[in-house]
């Protein structure tokens, strides 16, 4: 088992290098002139050239990729051409924010998806089931950014139930950064009000982000529940008059854990990608917003770093889910 994990990790490193190579070369075919951009609008040509030399932008691409990898090995991810800030600092700031948002929306997807799926199965083909199925199918078809806009419009602009955006109210004192996850940091500082406020800020973006995963989770849970309901032993249990719903739910839940996990793994990438769309709508200062801004301005150190981090976290999550699978299901263990 340990050896298998190590093998997967080694493979991951190679895949990440491949990924970086692809993105690095793509980002560099840009017709834009990053040095001029960094120098500012009124800069003289000499100033632009000085920056070009300073950043090594005059060297051939392959050399630059080599330097990049060498620096990376020392933990240096380069720096933004625009803000001059080291990319590593930016990632440390923005990645936890995005991770927190994605975790919250996975929470939404599971907390809503599992009961809705079961409910659908219990009322098989009746009105609740039909409604839930529409939600499930819509989840994948709704443009996330549009859903976010509409939620913001109704619940925040019109009804004033939720904050417009951001991570915390503007005057709320920030808890000391320990994990970078606002809720966790607030709890560590013992401040429940701030933790709740941070959570409250994540409701709308989290909901918008959770929809595709919610849809998948509803589907698998509904299917598992239907299957469980058909099983002989359930019929027996029912016949013996044991609190029938409790039993059915317990059996179905147990069976649904694995496919639910698999769905989370499958949709995790979607959610990471979705942050690009949702964070902008809600001014949520995370990696997605950071990536879009960098892409629009041809600021390529951040672009490469973001893809690296997102790729790595996607791979890690899928590895973790495979491991969870193996721990829960002996038949899979041999296949990892």
């Amino acid at each position: 088992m340990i050896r298998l994990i190590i093998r997967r990790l080694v493979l991951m490193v190679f895949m990440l290098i491949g990924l970086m190579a692809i993105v690095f070369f793509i980002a560099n075919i840009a017709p834009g002139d990053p040095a001029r951009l960094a120098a500012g609008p009124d800069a003289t040509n000499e100033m632009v050239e000085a920056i070009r030399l300073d950043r090594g932008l005059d060297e051939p691409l392959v050399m630059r990729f080599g330097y990049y990898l060498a620096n990376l090995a020392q933990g240096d991810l380069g720096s933004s051409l625009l803000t001059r800030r080291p990319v590593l600092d930016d990632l440390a700031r923005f990645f936890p924010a995005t991770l927190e948002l994605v975790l919250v929306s996975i929470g939404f997807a599971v907390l809503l998806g599992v009961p809705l799926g079961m409910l659908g199965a219990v009322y098989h083909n009746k009105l609740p089931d039909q409604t839930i199925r529409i939600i499930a199918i819509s989840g994948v078809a709704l443009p996330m950014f549009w859903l976010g806009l509409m939620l913001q419009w109704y619940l925040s602009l019109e009804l004033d139930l939720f904050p417009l955006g951001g991570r915390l109210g503007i005057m709320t004192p920030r808890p000391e950064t320990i994990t970078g996850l606002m809720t966790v940091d607030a709890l560590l500082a013992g401040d429940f009000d701030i933790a709740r406020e941070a959570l409250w800020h994540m409701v709308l973006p989290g909901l918008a982000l959770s929809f595709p995963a919610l849809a998948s989770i509803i589907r698998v849970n509904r299917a598992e529940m239907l299957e469980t309901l058909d099983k002989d032993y359930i019929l027996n249990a029912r016949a013996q008059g044991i609190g029938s719903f409790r039993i059915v739910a317990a059996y179905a839940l147990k069976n649904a854990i694995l496919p639910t996990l698999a769905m989370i793994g499958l949709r995790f990438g979607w959610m990471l990608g979705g942050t690009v769309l949702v964070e902008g709508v809600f001014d949520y200062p995370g990696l997605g917003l950071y990536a879009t801004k960098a892409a629009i301005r041809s600021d390529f150190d951040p672009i490469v770093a973001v893809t690296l981090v997102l790729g790595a976290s996607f791979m890690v999550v899928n590895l973790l889910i495979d491991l969870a699978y193996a721990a829960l299901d002996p038949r899979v263990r041999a296949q990892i």
Partner: protein
Amino acid sequence: MSVADNMETVAVTRPDRWREYRRMWATFSRSYSALLGLGLVSAFLILAAIGPWIVPFPEDALGSIHLERKLQPPSATHWFGTDEVGMDIYTRVIIGARTTLWIGLTVTIIAVLIGVPLGLVAGMSDGWLREVIMRVTDVFLSIPGLILAIAIVGALGPGILNAMVALSLVWWPGYVRLVQAKVLSVRNETYVEAAQSIGASPFRIVFLHVLPNCTSPIVVKASMDMGLAILGAASLGFLGLGAQPPYPEWGAMISIGKNYLPDWWWYSLFPGLAIYLTVLGFNLLGDGLRDMLDPKQRS
């Protein structure tokens, strides 16, 4: 079982094929959601085809501006209201179906054209060639497609063509995985092995025995992907990286319309609904097709 027996099951005779089609249609038409999907997709295709002849202000789709009637709410004249330069939103949403169809088709077709041959090659060959193809595929699949697409469009510059290129480049790996897996499962079937043993050329094997077995899942995936590609293109449009004005594209319309929320809500509401219904249609159709063509895959 002899080789001949197996060969016969592959080549079904004509009347049998009709019976098979009827059975499929029966499966399909029993499902309301599949029919709804078919309906939505048909409506979408019809609008894309005849749009320019049924819209009230066809010149508005080409960028004819009327500043004197900007940002008017929905009315009998302007069903979906007007935008910030007085163009009729209803007209632009209908004409936008063409843009959307074009994007969806192009992206899906390019993805199939790249992904399927690579998947066949990877499935049929052994050793380094398969390793290379599958590893490159894995790398592409290791990152959310939208992020990669954004990086590509960011580099190439915004525009509808670049958006399509970017989406096609991130879409093909799914087909490689699908086809390769299918080929592997078919490869060891007796009739393929038999064909190999009687000296059939690899091409012949692929086209006569392997590819027909892959068509159903490819068609199902392609139908689903039409929807997803449309969603992807709209997302790029929303980020300002897709279609350019005065071209009517739904995502780009929402991107501009969002600046006019909440007072001028109709501007972003209707294009969003159009995306939703179209993608929903393709997804439902894909589901229905899967139940019909590939009953074993049903989940």
